[in-house]
């Protein structure tokens, strides 16, 4: 352990203003990407489920295709 | 006899070769550009205007101006080339000539190269030729004028080549102008750095031959790669 106490650790010997924002921005962007991609997946799968429900009510509207590519 | 043969050649003979396609495109483009004289002068006037703005914005101090002159002239030339890029393919895209260019039997890269050469002849070359005039106004030392012109000649050709890729990528977009500068300016930085840096070295009296050779190398690399990249970009712009 390079620091005497937890308060010392937070203070970083006076460099706290520099060290913590740098870590915050880089690690924060990692967390943001992780959260966003998981939330986006939930949203997309809900969207697919909704598409399917709508289709079941009108079975002839748009049948599922093998590749299903839409542009 | 010979007249007869040329007549049949014209109907069923071999297709026009690479050189014929290149020179035909080049002469057509040059002729079109020279017919629109006001558009031809625009980049030059823009170049002169930017150079005029700097002494007004800074101070009419000749030592200050001569120290920033290489970078200033280079940035101004670069922006003038950038401004003229949007017209490289735009008109021909709108009236359908570009599709004919892609349908031609010659490789598209060669024809695109001809257009780029025409663009350089009407923007980069005149910019390099009038640069000493503006350099005098910025009190650039006299012994570095030839180096300034040489770097602008070599560099503006590279700028036209790289810029053609960006112009081809954005020609299908309605508001491609701002996007074009965002795409192209980062790619222009090496040319700017070596161009302005070489002139600065010439002012100090240092040998400049290696840096001129390096700028020639950049020109050679972009000559090899840029026409083909621009041709591929034109193809997708017409597909999309």
């Amino acid at each position, binding site marked *: 352990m390079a620091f005497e106490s937890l308060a010392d650790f937070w203070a970083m*010997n006076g460099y706290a203003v520099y*060290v913590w924002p*740098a870590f915050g921005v880089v690690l924060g962007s990692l967390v943001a990407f992780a959260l966003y*991609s998981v939330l986006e997946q939930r949203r*997309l799968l809900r*969207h697919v489920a909704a598409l399917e429900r709508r289709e079941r009510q009108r079975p002839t509207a748009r049948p599922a295709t093998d590749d299903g590519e*839409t542009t | 006899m010979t007249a007869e043969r040329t007549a049949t050649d014209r109907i069923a003979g071999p297709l026009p070769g690479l050189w014929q396609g290149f020179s035909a495109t080049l002469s057509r483009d040059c002729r079109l550009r020279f017919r629109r004289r006001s558009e031809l002068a625009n980049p030059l006037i823009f170049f002169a205007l930017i150079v005029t703005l700097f002494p007004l914005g800074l101070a009419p101090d000749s030592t200050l101006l001569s120290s920033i002159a290489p970078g200033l002239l280079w940035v101004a030339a670069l922006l003038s080339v950038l401004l003229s890029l949007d017209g490289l393919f735009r008109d021909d895209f709108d009236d359908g000539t570009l599709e004919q260019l892609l349908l031609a039997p010659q490789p598209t890269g060669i024809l695109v190269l001809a257009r780029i050469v025409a663009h350089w002849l009407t923007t980069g070359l005149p910019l390099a030729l009038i640069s000493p005039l503006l350099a005098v106004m910025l009190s650039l030392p006299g012994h570095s004028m030839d180096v300034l012109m040489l770097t602008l000649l070599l560099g503006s050709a590279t700028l036209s080549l790289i810029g053609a890729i960006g112009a081809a990528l954005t020609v299908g977009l309605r508001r491609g102008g701002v996007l074009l500068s965002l*795409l192209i300016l980062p790619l222009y930085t090496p040319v700017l750095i070596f161009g302005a840096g070489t002139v600065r070295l010439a002012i100090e009296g240092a040998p400049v031959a290696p840096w001129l050779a390096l700028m020639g190398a950049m020109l050679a690399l972009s000559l090899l790669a840029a026409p083909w*990249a621009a041709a591929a970009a034109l193809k997708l712009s017409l597909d*999309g």
Partner: protein
Amino acid sequence: MWPIIHKLGSPKWFYTMSGRWLPFLWGSGTILVVLGSLWGLAFAPPDYQQGDSFRILYVHVPAAILAQSCFALMAMCSLIFLVWRIKLADMVAGAAAPFGAAMTFGALFSGAVWGVPTWGTWWVWDARLTSMLLMLFLYLGIMALRGAFASRDGGARAAAILTLVGVINLPIIKYSVVWWNTLHQGATFSLTEKPAMPASMWLPLLLMVIGFYLLFAAVTVARTRNEIIRRQPTARWVRALVQGGRHGL
């Protein structure tokens, strides 16, 4: 050869295979980054010259490495997409771009913040920072170009061409900026070139770099999976996936 390429390029195969790797990627990446951060922040000895401000190294260096690796990955995917027209390659390139831009920004931000205690100013026209800034502009240009096209295929091909032009240019930009920097005799003190770091300093850095790579892989795979669903919402296997509830992570 061809069946393998087709299998690799099949979105369905990718989706089912990556579903198995993804939890491992998220888990191991998170563990390594958390361990590396704790080690680097609390246990590594302070630098004899820079004191505790050197700890910024533990995010600055991985972010800078990832920014470059991400561009390399995008260039590879763009080449595969342009040559073989494998759409999955384009999806990976599109998924990686924002992450690369974020890492470039992170490297720039941490470098600027690090500059205050070491150089006494936020921004120095140092060769590394300047070429990073230009790379950020390249990333933004590629993302903007992809978004500007109305057709998805047009945007994909345009972005691929620009990525390849950019990757040829990046070494030239880097070299020219270094030359420009020596011409001006600017800051000679470099942030990352240090004489022989002790193991207690570079081991946490190694953990961080590996952890960042794993998280980069996880984010790219997850975003590619999302893109697959976005492009094929009516495919049978996607339907089966939703009904079966096997969402994976």
